[in-house]
């Protein structure tokens, strides 16, 4: 078997319908962005699942690490005053 360089991996994001944001649907290999979009169209939108495609080379994505879970998200758990339900208002005030 000849040693060929593997095509890079791309992460695919699809807008399902107008008004919605793009959502990650999966990944695929392609030599470049143009081809990645064409492949994404073939693989991920064969049943009318999309109106727009974003492709991002997987190596360009920076991600938080699972071990950062504590420092990143725990501080928000005790800040209930960030939710509207924290503030009890009298019925007389009506809907607010």
């Amino acid at each position, binding site marked *: 078997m*000849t040693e060929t360089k*593997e095509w890079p991996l791309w992460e695919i994001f699809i807008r399902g319908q107008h008004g919605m944001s793009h959502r990650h649907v*999966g990944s695929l290999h392609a*030599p470049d962005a143009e081809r990645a979009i064409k492949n994404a169209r073939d693989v991920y939108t064969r049943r009318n699942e999309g109106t727009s495609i974003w492709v991002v080379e997987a190596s360009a994505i920076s991600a938080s690490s*699972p071990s950062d879970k504590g420092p990143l998200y725990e501080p928000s758990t005790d800040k209930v005053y960030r939710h509207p339900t924290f503030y009890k208002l009298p019925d007389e005030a009506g809907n607010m």
Partner: protein
Amino acid sequence: MYAQSIKSTGRAVQSLEDMSAEDREFQERIDRGEKIEPKDYMPEAYRKNLIRQIGQHAHSEIVGQLPEGNWITRAPTLERKANLLAKVQDEAGHGLYLYCAAETLGVSRDELFEMLHNGRMKYSSIFNYPTLTWADMGAVGWLVDGAAIMNQVPLQRTSYGPYARSMVRICKEESFHQRQGFHIMIAMAKKGNADQKRMAQDALNRFWYPSLMMFGPSDKDSVHSAQSMAWKIKMNSNDELRQKFVDETVPQAQYLGLSIPDENLKWNEATEHYDFTGPDWSEFDDVLAGNGPCNTDRLETRKKAWADGAWVREGMMAHAEKKAIAAKKAQHKMATG
């Protein structure tokens, strides 16, 4: 199933007390129904097992295109041809989703292909049987995809996130596959002439036992299942799914007016299941060992397709690199004016 010969560690399942702190935490996450994601901690054996299982599953999707691809140019009508083409194209996509899921575990797609091509990794035994007549397209869709769906539906709840998500997509797309197969069977077995009915029965006769084999060895011979079930990368036992398949398929065969090639097949009032004859396991072992009717042919076709496509893969990569360099140069020129 599509991964029917997974040899796991062979060790018995460890109890929570015997596990390292990391492994215990991992097992407790699975027990709570949490999904494991690529960057999370996982025991090495879990990773290795999943690579083998997802890899075998992916290979089965890709090799599974060959027996049906055989009939695309010979489909009896343009509509049937379009249906079959769409199904076979779906299988390519399913292979792709699964290869991508395996890649998140640290193996490259090229490595997986190489292991398929040099025989270190397997694909489902079912695709080593020939598709001799058009009725086989009906039988494959009805029985083979039917059996596959039965296995894949529970795998949507498997513990590894990327695998579970690819299963969700696959199940969504696959439901039409079985129906198009059954549709072909209806046309031949119920509405067809005597010859077509005979062909439909013949296809069922040839695919019945190989379909039962798809679920893998009997539970009593499947010593590696316990660990996979504890890890939730296997959700039901082989015999459980096989029984479910028989129970659902027999009434469908009756509807078609076809008979299941099993003299011992009988409804059991007490168990509320069909009693049936299991497949010949020596044939199963033989096919897995490489001696099925089409093993050599399938693997050669795969290898040839991969080798013949090499110049395209290389050419497109070289072109992409050249374009990237040109774009960079143009950008530099703009910036420096």
